[in-house]
């Protein structure tokens, strides 16, 4: 006679056993599971690791992996909750920019693995007469965010080898990440650019987003802002009729 739930019970007991520090063979399994998670986080949050140091990062990553284990076997995309989780840690107050650095890294990873889509280019938009009738979808690999700390300056400095000089004003910053083809690009996004793209993301036409942006930021050159966003690969190619 076999009892049907045997395999399930075996798996549950095994999972519980490797959830705790173990010795001998069980430690081999436990270590492999943990190092799989830690290595995936290390690959996706390289600047966070630089800031914390390798040893501290590993301790933090092990704790995160215990609380938010992978839900999919595709580890290239593991750790979407890491930025928010960092913000909830008791020691976070000492590094208030850290979760926003992590957020930039997460947007970078999302952009890297997003679907390949042809970006819109200015030549296809040259004959537009009524911009209020034009809706442009965001490109699959375009990401942007407004950060309340100089996290982007910190992130840029750490991407240089050796780490660049941390010489910046303590102020809010916008980040724009695009991947029109195969290479991910990160650039600064001004407040007007962030307002404009937020409108686009909410479904505003190009004209409506431009008018709303100009009303809040009257000094912004909306025409050149729009051209620079198109050239960065922010929009997907389309027949551009809403």
């Amino acid at each position, binding site marked *: 006679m*076999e009892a*049907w*739930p*045997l*395999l*399930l019970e*075996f*798996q*549950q007991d*095994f*999972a519980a056993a*490797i959830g705790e520090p173990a*010795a*001998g*063979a*069980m430690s*081999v*399994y436990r270590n*492999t*599971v943990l190092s*799989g*998670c830690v290595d*995936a986080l290390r690959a996706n949050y390289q600047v966070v690791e630089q800031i914390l140091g390798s040893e501290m990062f590993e301790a933090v990553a092990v704790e995160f992996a215990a609380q938010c*284990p*992978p*839900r*999919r*076997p*595709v*580890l*290239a*995309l593991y750790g979407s909750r890491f930025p928010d989780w960092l913000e909830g840690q008791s020691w976070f107050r000492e590094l208030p920019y850290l979760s926003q650095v992590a957020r930039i890294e997460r947007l970078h990873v999302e952009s*890297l*693995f*997003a*679907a*390949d*889509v042809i970006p819109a280019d200015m030549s296809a938009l040259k004959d537009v007469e009524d911009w209020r009738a034009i809706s442009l979808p965001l490109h*699959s*690999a375009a990401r942007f965010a407004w950060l309340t700390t100089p996290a982007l300056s910190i992130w840029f400095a750490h991407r240089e080898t050796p780490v660049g000089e941390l010489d910046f004003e303590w102020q809010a910053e916008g980040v724009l990440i695009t*991947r029109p083809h*195969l*290479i991910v690009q990160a650039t600064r996004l001004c407040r007007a650019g962030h307002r404009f793209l937020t409108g686009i993301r909410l479904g505003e036409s190009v004209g409506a987003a431009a008018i709303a942006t100009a009303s809040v930021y009257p000094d912004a050159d909306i025409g050149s802002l729009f051209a620079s966003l198109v050239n960065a690969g922010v929009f997907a190619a389309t027949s551009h009729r809403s």
Partner: protein
Amino acid sequence: MTPAAGVGFKAEHFEEALAAPAAGLWFEVHAENYMVDGGPRLAMLEAVRSERPLSLHGVGLSLAGAEPPDADHVTALKKLVDRFEPELVSEHLAWSRLDGRCFPDLLPVPRTNEVLRRLADNIGRVQDALGRQILIENPSHYLALRDHQWSETSFLAELARRSGCRLLIDVNNVAVGSHNIGYDAAEWLGAIPAGLVGEIHLAGHSLDDEGSLLIDSHDQPITNDVWALYDAFIARVGARPTLIERDGNLPPFAELLAERERAQAALDGSLALAA
């Protein structure tokens, strides 16, 4: 695939891998690493595939679990298979998913009738979804589980008979398990039916921190023991596509190619004997 030796593909070796002139060279990748929507990683695999045959080696289907394989994961695998048209598709006799959680490891099971039935059913589902046969790899053992109802070799043979899959025999896993839980590696390999063997894996291993267990770490050159087991195995079963697996402590590509040439020479010798 004509039986030839291949190398596990690593992005670090991209240019050398594409430029390598070796006749018959093929590459294997972990399927899960390419289950993304787009970007340079998939473009790189396209470039490799345009030059060389490819093998997709899955690590995340959790075929030996009590739950059926995750439908989204099977769909993602099918998408890769349809796009890259691999010569071989393989997975492990292991589980890695439970109650919605994934464990990035290949976890063991007792070889019971229930597990056999579950595995055969899960493999059947995957083969039906992909519209092709898959290969199942024997696991590394670190733990002597109780409650086995089958010997490992008869379990594998019966699994292949029931599900229609074939076997990927990892000779290093056999050697590691032989050391860790105590069985005769040559005898084990001698009990595998030749007709079921669709691919062979070769890799290096290392001793764990406590100094007692061999770990299937893929971070060292292949040992002489493993080469000797391999030579004897292909002398009996005949030439089979053979992969040099290296995942950690990555050496220059030339070193992997040298191991690959060693395997190819064995395969050529075996072919000459069979002719």
